[in-house]
């Protein structure tokens, strides 16, 4: 497995912490998923100190923490948020999101590259939420990123891999770079497909948290990424157009 800024993940599953029916279900889902990374965010603290109990719970999960810049629409906003996240979460990892389009939540890749450059210069280890565009990927690497996180489909859509062809091309183009499918997965089969393409991990949240039984779905996702990874390592056959009998033809009895 390719290392993420020097850290080898124990499993190829990164799981979000939002939208669960309760904190207890979140914790149980994490246990069942075997996720090695938890994504988190920053929001305004209220008088009740809700953020403090959340922080305690996240620490107890015993996984790597990946703060995001979700909801940021400008370079400046994303950079300020990243600095605040680094201090609060005590990590230089940052999932960099700079949103460019309100309906699709498509990243503004021009702003993304600019923010990635500034943050990398400032010592951040940037996990950029990007598209499957190869040239953007190259520019993100040149900006200092050592990881790329292309979207599978729009955030929260659950549509699976919208463009498997381009994601396959991205894997081929960047053979040494850790690649993560981030966003848009809805089913274990989507997660397995991402791993079968040779991706290093998947990052999902809604597919587990908003399912009817998040704990059971977390388990299903864990099994799917393991199956997909084993399949990729095993070397899948190439699809072909014509049938080819799997049972030997030679030695077949001559019967009428």
């Amino acid at each position, binding site marked *: 497995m390719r290392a993420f800024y020097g850290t080898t993940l124990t499993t190829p599953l990164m799981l*979000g*912490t*939002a*939208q*669960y029916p309760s904190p207890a279900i*979140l914790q149980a889902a994490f246990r069942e998923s075997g996720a090695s990374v938890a*994504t*988190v*965010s*920053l*929001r*305004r*603290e209220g*008088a009740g*100190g*809700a*953020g*403090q109990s*959340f*922080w305690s719970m*996240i620490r107890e999960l015993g996984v790597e923490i990946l*703060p*995001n810049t*979700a909801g940021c629409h400008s370079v*400046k*906003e994303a950079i*300020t948020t990243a*600095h*605040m*996240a680094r*201090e*609060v*979460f005590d990590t230089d990892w940052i999932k960099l999101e700079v949103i460019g389009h309100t309906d699709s939540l498509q990243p503004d890749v021009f702003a993304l590259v600019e923010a990635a450059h500034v943050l990398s210069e400032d010592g951040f280890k940037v996990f950029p939420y990007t598209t499957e565009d190869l040239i953007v990927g190259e520019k993100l690497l040149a900006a200092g990123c050592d990881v790329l996180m292309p979207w599978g489909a729009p*955030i*929260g859509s659950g549509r699976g891999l919208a463009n498997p062809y381009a994601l396959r091309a991205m894997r081929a183009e960047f053979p040494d770079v850790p690649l993560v499918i981030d966003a848009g997965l809805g089913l274990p089969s989507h997660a397995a497909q991402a791993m079968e393409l040779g991706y290093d991990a998947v990052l999902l*949240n*809604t597919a587990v948290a908003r399912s009817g039984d998040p704990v059971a779905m977390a388990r299903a996702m864990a099994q799917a990424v393991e199956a997909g990874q084993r399949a990729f390592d095993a070397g899948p056959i190439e699809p072909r157009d014509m049938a080819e009998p799997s049972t030997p033809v030679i030695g077949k009895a001559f019967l009428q």
Partner: protein
Amino acid sequence: MIILNGERCEVAATDLAGLLIERDLTGRVATAVNEVFVPATARAGHALSDGDRVEVLAPMQGG
């Protein structure tokens, strides 16, 4: 008068560190004043002015 997390409020504190104590925001938080990050180490000396926009952020669920 300052604007704390989007709400107008009158405060007695004269610097950012004092504001956090006054408002009982002493847990694990990060701060920004007028859209500029203020590290924890700089809060004590960061004087507040009338109309300052102060953001106090804490760990929260995220995807």
